[in-house]
C-alpha cells in the first residue's frame, strides 16, 4: 500500500469530519504561526539592530583601551589625540577620511527653559551623522566653512527641539550651552525604527565650536573611513601602532570591534528568540495533545472499520500506518496553515509597524518538519491502540 494511498485515505477521513478536524488543527495552526511570527520578528529585529549599531560604511573606530580608560578613571587627557596624530592617521594607506568626535554633557537653556545633561558632540565632519543614520530635517547640515569657524551653529535633536521650542521655529534662535550662546542652524530627523525609543537630547557642533564652548580641544574618538572593507583590519592595526608610537605608550588605544558587537547582539537576540519561541512551542504542545485526543476518539469511532479492514487482509502494521499518517496529515495541514497565517501576520507587521519581520525559508521548512514530528509523536499512541484491537471484537462493535 503506497504512501500516497494512505494520505488520500487520511484526507478522506479528515474531510469526513470537517468541523472537528478544523477545531483540532487550530492548536497547531496557532502554535506554528506564533513560532513563525516570533522568529520572524527576532530575525528582522536582529538585522536592524546590527545595522543600526554598526553603520553601513567601512569605518574603523579608535577609542581608549579599557585598561587606559580604567586607569584614568574615565577622564581622557587633552593630548589623547593630537593634531600630529591626525596628520599621521590621514597618511595611512587606505584611509580616506579621518573623523574626530568629542563629547561632554552640559546643561542647556533657551530663554527660561533649561535642560540638564544634554549630550554635546563635537565633530569635524558630517560623516558622524551619516554613520549613525541621522538626517537633517530642518535647516542645513554643516558646510566645510563651519568646521573651520570657531563660532558656527548647532544641530539639535528632534526631541530637544520639542522640549525647548515646542511649536516655535527653532532656526536662527540662540540657545546657551553653559554660558556660551550658539545659533541653531538645523534640526535632526527623529530616528526611525524601534531605535526611536533611544532618541535623546543631543546637540551636534563642529569640532572648533565645541572646543570654544568647553574651552578644551580633547578628542575622545577617531573614526577612520576606509576605502575597502578588506583593508579595515590592517588600517586598524596600523592606526593603533602609530598612536602608541607617537605617544610612546602601549595598551592605550584600541579598535572598537564592530564585528564583536554584532556577534554579541546576535547572541542576545538568539537567546530571546529561543525563549519566546519555546513559549510558542508550548502552544504547539497543547495543539499536539489536541491531535492525540481527537485521534483516540477517531480510533474508537472507527473500531468497526478497523475490524472490517482486518477481516479483508489488513495487517496490524497497515492499521498502525493508516492512523499514524492520518495524524501526521492532520498536523501538517495545521502546520501549513500556521505558516501561511504566520507569514501573513509577519507581512502585516512589516507593513504597519517600523519593525521588519522576515520569514525565512529554513524557518518555514522547520515549521513543516516540526508539525510532522508532532503528528508522529501524538499519533503513535492512538495508532498503536488501533493496531492492537481484536478483529472479531471490532466487527461486533456498534
Amino acid at each position: 500500500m503506497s504512501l500516497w494511498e494512505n494520505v488520500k485515505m487520511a484526507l478522506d477521513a479528515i474531510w469526513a469530519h470537517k468541523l472537528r478536524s478544523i477545531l483540532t488543527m487550530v492548536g497547531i495552526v496557532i502554535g506554528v504561526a506564533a513560532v513563525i511570527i516570533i522568529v520572524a520578528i527576532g530575525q528582522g529585529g536582529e538585522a536592524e539592530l546590527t545595522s543600526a549599531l554598526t553603520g553601513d560604511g567601512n569605518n574603523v573606530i579608535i577609542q581608549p583601551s579599557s585598561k587606559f580608560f580604567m586607569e584614568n578613571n574615565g577622564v581622557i587627557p587633552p593630548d589623547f589625540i593630537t593634531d600630529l596624530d591626525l596628520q599621521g592617521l590621514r597618511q595611512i594607506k587606505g584611509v580616506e577620511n579621518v573623523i574626530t568626535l568629542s563629547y561632554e554633557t552640559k546643561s542647556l537653556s533657551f530663554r527660561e527653559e533649561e535642560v540638564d545633561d544634554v549630550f554635546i558632540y563635537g565633530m569635524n565632519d558630517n560623516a558622524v551623522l551619516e554613520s549613525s543614520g541621522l538626517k537633517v530635517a530642518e535647516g542645513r547640515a554643516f558646510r566645510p566653512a563651519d568646521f573651520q569657524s570657531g563660532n558656527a551653529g548647532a544641530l539639535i535633536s528632534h526631541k530637544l527641539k520639542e522640549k525647548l521650542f515646542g511649536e516655535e521655529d527653532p532656526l536662527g534662535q540662540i540657545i546657551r550651552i553653559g554660558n556660551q550662546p550658539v545659533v541653531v542652524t538645523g534640526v535632526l530627523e527623529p530616528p526611525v525604527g524601534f531605535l526611536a525609543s533611544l532618541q535623546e537630547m543631543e546637540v551636534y557642533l563642529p569640532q572648533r565650536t565645541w572646543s570654544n564652548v568647553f574651552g578644551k580641544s580633547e578628542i575622545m574618538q577617531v573614526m577612520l573611513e576606509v576605502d575597502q572593507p578588506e583593508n579595515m583590519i590592517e588600517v586598524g592595526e596600523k592606526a593603533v601602532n602609530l598612536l602608541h608610537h607617537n605617544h610612546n605608550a602601549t595598551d592605550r588605544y584600541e579598535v572598537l570591534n564592530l564585528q564583536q558587537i554584532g556577534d554579541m547582539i546576535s547572541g542576545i537576540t538568539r537567546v530571546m528568540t529561543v525563549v519566546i519561541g519555546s513559549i510558542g512551542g508550548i502552544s504547539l504542545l497543547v495543539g499536539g495533545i489536541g491531535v492525540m485526543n481527537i485521534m483516540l476518539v477517531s480510533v474508537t469511532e472507527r473500531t468497526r472499520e478497523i475490524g472490517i479492514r482486518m477481516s479483508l487482509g489488513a495487517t496490524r502494521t497497515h492499521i498502525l500506518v493508516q492512523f499514524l499518517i492520518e495524524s501526521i496529515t492532520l498536523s501538517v495541514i495545521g502546520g501549513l496553515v500556521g505558516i501561511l497565517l504566520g507569514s501573513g501576520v509577519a507581512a502585516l507587521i512589516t507593513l504597519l509597524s517600523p519593525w521588519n519581520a522576515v520569514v525565512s525559508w529554513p524557518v518555514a521548512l522547520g515549521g513543516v518538519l516540526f508539525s510532522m514530528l508532532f503528528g508522529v509523536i501524538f499519533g503513535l499512541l492512538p495508532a498503536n491502540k488501533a493496531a492492537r484491537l481484536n478483529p472479531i471484537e471490532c466487527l461486533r462493535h456498534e
Partner: protein
Amino acid sequence: MIQLEEVDKAYQMGSMTIPVLKGINLIINEGEYVAIMGPSGSGKSTLMNLIGCLDRPTSGHYYLNGEDVSKADERKLAAVRNRQIGFVFQQFQLLPRMTAQKNVELPLVYAGVSQKERTKRAIEALEKVGLGDRKDHRPTELSGGQQQRVAIARALINNPSIILADEPTGALDTSSGQRIMDIFDQLHQEGRTVVLITHDPEIAARAHRQILLRDGQIVEDQNQGKEVSG
C-alpha cells in the same frame, strides 16, 4: 481443504474460563457446499472465525490446504484472510463513507494491486452480482439485499477458494435472501468451497452438507442426506 483436529476454543472472562468449542474434528474438502446450523450460542460464529483465520484455537490443530495455521503469526493470518478466504457477514460490514466500488476494492488494496487493475476488477465483480450500475452508490443509498451483494462482490474480488458466510440472509427479506442464495449456489458451481451459517432449514437444504452444532460440539453431520461418520 479445511481440516480441524481436536480443536478447542475457550474465552477467558476474568478468572473464569468459558469453553465455547470442544474437541471439534472436521474436514471440509475443496468445492464442498456446507451449512452450519445450531441454536444461538452454540459456537457457530466462533467456529467460522477460526476457519476464517480471524482467531486462533486455544488448542488443537487447524490445517488449511495442508498447512498448519493454528500457530501462524498475525501477518500470515492476514495474508490468508486476504487471498484464500472471502467473508460475508450478516450485517454486511461495508464502510459507510465509501462507494460500492471502493468497498469492493479494499482487499486488493491490501494485496498491493494497482489502482487501474483494482478499478477493472471491482467493476467486474459488481457486474457479476448484478450491481454494475450501482458502483458509485454509498451503502446508505442501497437496499439491504444490494448491500449484501456488494459484500459478496468484495469477498470474491481476490478470487478466494473459500467463501465463509455468517447468516448472510439473516437481515434480509425472503426474496432478497433467495437472490443471495442463488449467488452462493453459483459460487459452489464454480468450484469454490462455500460454508454458511443459517437458522433457516430451507436455506440449509440448498447446501449439500449440513452440520449441526450444540454446546460447542458437532452433534450431526449429514452429507446429501447421508450421515457422515467420524
